[in-house]
């Protein structure tokens, strides 16, 4: 075994007693090596070993830790490790370092599986309960707010939020929806060509966009873009105690923070979805004209024939509900945040995942309700 840097370890026997003598600096560098030596020298079948630290002139935290570790190891083997000499600096340092509990590995108490499961279920239920309260509070203030005293949020907040949640998302919704429409047209034409039913690509694109893809794609984009922003904003306000401050001044944080966004989302979500649908159909039309040999007027005519008013109505209704879901999930995740900057990030991620999940589940329920 190597000798430690800035220290030496030696073993000798005096009066029939094994002694380990350390010289020099017992620090982060030398400590592990010294520990190895001591461990190797702990005899079997002998009950006492003397540890001579009389010529150690410096000991740091690592040094102190290996000393107590050596003692623990010795104890495990039934050896009594005794300090026989101690220099003054080492004595002072060892007196300064304190531990309240037992020394050795910190063992995390494992949670029993059933307990963990129960814990999860309980906290899940709690979350749902909180969410229902939030929903009730938000809609109460959204409906009653305008008729009772005081203003919820600063003037122009709904407009500002509509700008943030709606107008700014316009470009990305338009672009992605037209790409989806384009892909849909290509895909369906490829299959329909086998039957010489090329023109029905228009039906497929139009109905799919209006009923499903338009509201869904818009909702996913809004969840990723605006939902995360809402969650991050509210979570940050929670962490910096701004929400508590609002409450302490007699504001309702829900009325102040969530309700303006609810109004904004109710206005912007159908508009965005409508944009998405229009762009999707347009994208399909472009592909039909250029690649599939379907003239644009025929495509449009076919699309209008295919879409019923009920489809448009259900699509737009869905979009509003999706908007509300995204907002509620984001606000819930934001308001539940506890801790520091890291908690804000976690809440944001959770809000995006949870809102997309909820949107898709709701979409299934809607499809069943409308078309079964």
């Amino acid at each position, binding site marked *: 075994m190597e000798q430690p840097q800035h220290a030496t370890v030696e073993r000798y026997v005096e009066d029939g007693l094994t002694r380990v003598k350390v010289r020099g600096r017992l620090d982060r560098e030398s400590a592990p090596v010294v520990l190895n030596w001591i461990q190797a020298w702990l005899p079997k079948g002998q009950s006492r070993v003397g540890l001579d630290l009389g010529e150690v002139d410096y000991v740091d935290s690592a040094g102190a830790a290996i000393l107590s570790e050596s*003692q623990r190891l010795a104890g495990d083997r039934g050896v009594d*490790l005794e300090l026989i000499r101690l220099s003054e600096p080492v004595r002072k340092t060892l*007196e300064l370092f*304190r*531990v309240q509990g037992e020394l050795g590995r910190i063992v995390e108490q494992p949670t029993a599986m059933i307990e963990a499961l129960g814990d999860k279920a309980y906290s899940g239920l709690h979350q749902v309960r909180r969410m229902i309260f939030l929903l009730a509070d938000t809609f109460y203030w959204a409906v009653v707010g305008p008729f009772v005293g005081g203003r919820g949020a600063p003037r122009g907040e709904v407009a500002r939020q509509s700008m943030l949640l709606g107008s700014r998302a316009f470009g990305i919704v338009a672009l992605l929806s037209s790409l989806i429409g384009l892909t849909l047209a290509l895909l369906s034409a490829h299959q329909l060509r086998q039957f010489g039913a090329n023109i029905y690509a228009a039906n497929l694109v139009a109905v799919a966009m209006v009923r499903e893809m338009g509201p869904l794609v818009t909702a996913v984009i809004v969840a990723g873009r605006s939902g995360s922003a809402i969650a991050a904003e509210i979570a940050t306000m929670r962490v*910096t*105690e701004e929400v508590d401050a609002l409450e302490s*001044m007699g*504001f309702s944080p829900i009325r102040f923070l969530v309700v303006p966004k609810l109004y904004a989302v109710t206005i912007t979500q159908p508009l965005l979805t409508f944009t998405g649908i229009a762009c999707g159909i347009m994208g399909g039309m472009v592909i039909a004209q250029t690649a599939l040999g379907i003239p644009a007027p025929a495509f449009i005519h076919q699309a209008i024939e295919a879409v019923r008013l009920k489809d448009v109505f259900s699509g737009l209704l869905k979009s509003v509900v999706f908007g509300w879901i995204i907002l509620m999930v984001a606000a819930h995740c934001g308001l539940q945040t506890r801790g520091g900057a890291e908690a804000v990030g976690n809440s944001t991620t959770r809000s995006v995942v949870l809102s997309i999940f909820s949107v898709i589940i709701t979409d299934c329920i809607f499809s069943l309700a409308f078309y079964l």
Partner: protein
Amino acid sequence: MSDPVLQMENVSLNYGSEPVLTGINLAIQPGELTVIAGTSGCGKSTLLRGAIGLLRPSKGIIRLLGRDIANLDEEELAELRRRVGLLFQGGALINSMTIAENVALPVRQFSRLPDSVVDSLVRMKLAQVGLEDAMQKTPPELSGGMRKRAALARTLAMDPELLLCDEPSAGLDPVTAAALDRLLLDLRAAMNMTLVVVTHELGSIDAIADRVIMVAGGGLAFDGSLEQAHRTETQVVKDFFARKPAKAETRGRSILERLLKP
């Protein structure tokens, strides 16, 4: 004697499921300046949060301005909170608004004053804390001390009957801290405001306190006048004023002791 502004009877407050304070009894009289002292993490801020119902007690009764807050609905509680100011430790200004908008926020919300009057009021409050020049800045552009003073201006904008301050002078330079102490004393003298100040600055305590409440070990260790606090035999209070740390044995055994007596 008139009714206490804030009264707690056998109150226990939890943080999560962990009890922070238990068996709290106190009554704050109108016009009094009470200092709540104690070492870090002993539950001083928790006590303030409990006082205005941001944290619901797990046990006991809290009466704020004569009303039992457990019996109030959200609206009534909000109404009551408007008569009480709470200055948060970190200021808790709304970061997306300028300092002026922050101060104006509660005034615009809860009064029918015309905008020009609100603006003058805001200037007045900001001048009081020496921040008239920073009016158009947002909180992140200010230093910690300035933010705290801006938050005080916001709290004062509603002229609260009871002002609760959570470590108003922590992190401030001694000159500004002394000015803040002075301001608190002036406010009480001029407007007969009741103040509860959480602090662990000994200088501040001596300068402003009428009464000292010491929080330690999950409860109130001392409650009495400033003079009584200086003369008391209660060990924690004596140690606190003498700047003596808690007894060494509470911090465990030294490594030396362990090596000598395994």
